[in-house]
């Protein structure tokens, strides 16, 4: 969809605006008073709509990722809510066009997942990465802000468990677990694990698969 908009955006816009101009012209030719209801409605919707579009745009884009994850997945079929899926291959030109994996870098294995914390917190487990670059990004769908990271930069590369809690959650954080408070029940998760080269791919993939989510209390 994005691709089509990028490719045909300008001609399409011009055609649509031309149709609008013709509609308005038709009314005006029947007398100026004929165009008043149209003009008033258009003006109100325009003034209210433009800021509204800007306000919801981050949510719309994150929801695009949500749909991609829950409906199509990263090559292995739909990814259920509250699970992480690690793509076994890096991005490449041979990935299906339009897929998320045709746009990344071939030095990373990507993980994707969509969290719903309404039913309770989730525990993110990460294995010992032994110095390898990796990151798990947590994005708030309402603002598209990355409110937390687990990974080499923020938490180091040792094995660890992280408790992801939704807003208003109260309870005990298990020993040895660090809490990450989400501003929202819904969370987009994007993981990245560095791949040194082709011979390193099985090792990197093995580690990526060990980045897992488990509901609190069921570890």
């Amino acid at each position: 969809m994005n691709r089509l908009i990028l490719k045909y955006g300008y001609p399409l816009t011009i055609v649509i605006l031309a149709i609008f101009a013709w509609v308005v012209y038709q009314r005006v030719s029947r007398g100026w008073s004929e165009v008043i209801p149209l003009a008033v409605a258009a003006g109100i919707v325009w003034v209210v709509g433009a800021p509204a579009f800007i306000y919801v745009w981050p949510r719309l884009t994150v929801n695009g990722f949500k749909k991609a994850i829950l409906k199509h997945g990263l090559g292995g079929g739909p990814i259920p809510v509250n699970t992480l899926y690690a793509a076994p291959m890096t991005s490449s030109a041979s990935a299906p066009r339009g897929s998320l994996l045709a746009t990344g870098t071939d030095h990373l294995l990507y993980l994707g997942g969509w969290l719903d914390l309404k039913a309770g917190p989730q525990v993110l487990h990460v294995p010992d990465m032994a110095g390898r670059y990796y990151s798990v990004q947590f994005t708030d769908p309402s603002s598209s802000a990355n409110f937390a990271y687990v990974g080499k930069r923020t938490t180091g590369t040792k094995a660890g468990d992280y408790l992801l809690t939704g807003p208003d959650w109260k309870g005990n954080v298990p020993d040895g677990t660090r809490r990450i408070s989400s501003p929202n029940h819904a969370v987009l998760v994007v993981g990245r694990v560095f791949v040194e080269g082709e011979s390193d791919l099985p090792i990197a993939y093995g580690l990526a698969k060990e980045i897992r989510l488990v509901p609190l209390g069921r570890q």
Partner: protein
Amino acid sequence: MASILAWVAQSGVLQGIIIGGTLAFLTAVLIMNAVARAVTKTNNGWRVIRQCGQPANGVLVRAACAKALPVVNVFEEAAYWTTATDGSGQTLAGRHEYILRFPAGQLPPNDAFWSLTLTDVVGYMVNNPINRSSIDDRSSLVKNADGSVDIYLQHNAPPGHGQNWLPSPPGKFKLMLRVYLPGAAILNDTYRVPHVVRTT
């Protein structure tokens, strides 16, 4: 009731709502593009936005980032530069040949890795005979005598420089330089990506 519906249909209110909604959408896109341009820094033709993904961003910057670089990493995690033009401002195209020269010791500083990816203008990787869509710090790049590194961006293999070759498609293309865990010189904005020089 029927008369109200008839009025809605004939008065032009419905048309007005459709027209207003479309204009609102176009206005929003124009505003987001303008904000994205305002927060974009350009050096040597390379464009970069440093503030995306940060929780403190206001509504406009959030929207501009979501449009320009959806769900992108924060800058401290990964810096992304893009360019679709050479150093003189001309659009990059496969019918020309280009060199990107990193002076000695000026490869992107980082604590993870860097990579230079060549894509079509939308952002998808392109098929090529050597199956290479990016060049990076593990590519065993050949250095010049003075320690600088030349990366050859062209459609046909550069004789004797195949190791440093990043194949371009016949048509227009763009480049993305990613630096994961960017070093201090990038974070404090003193590092500059060199410009792409057209050679033929």
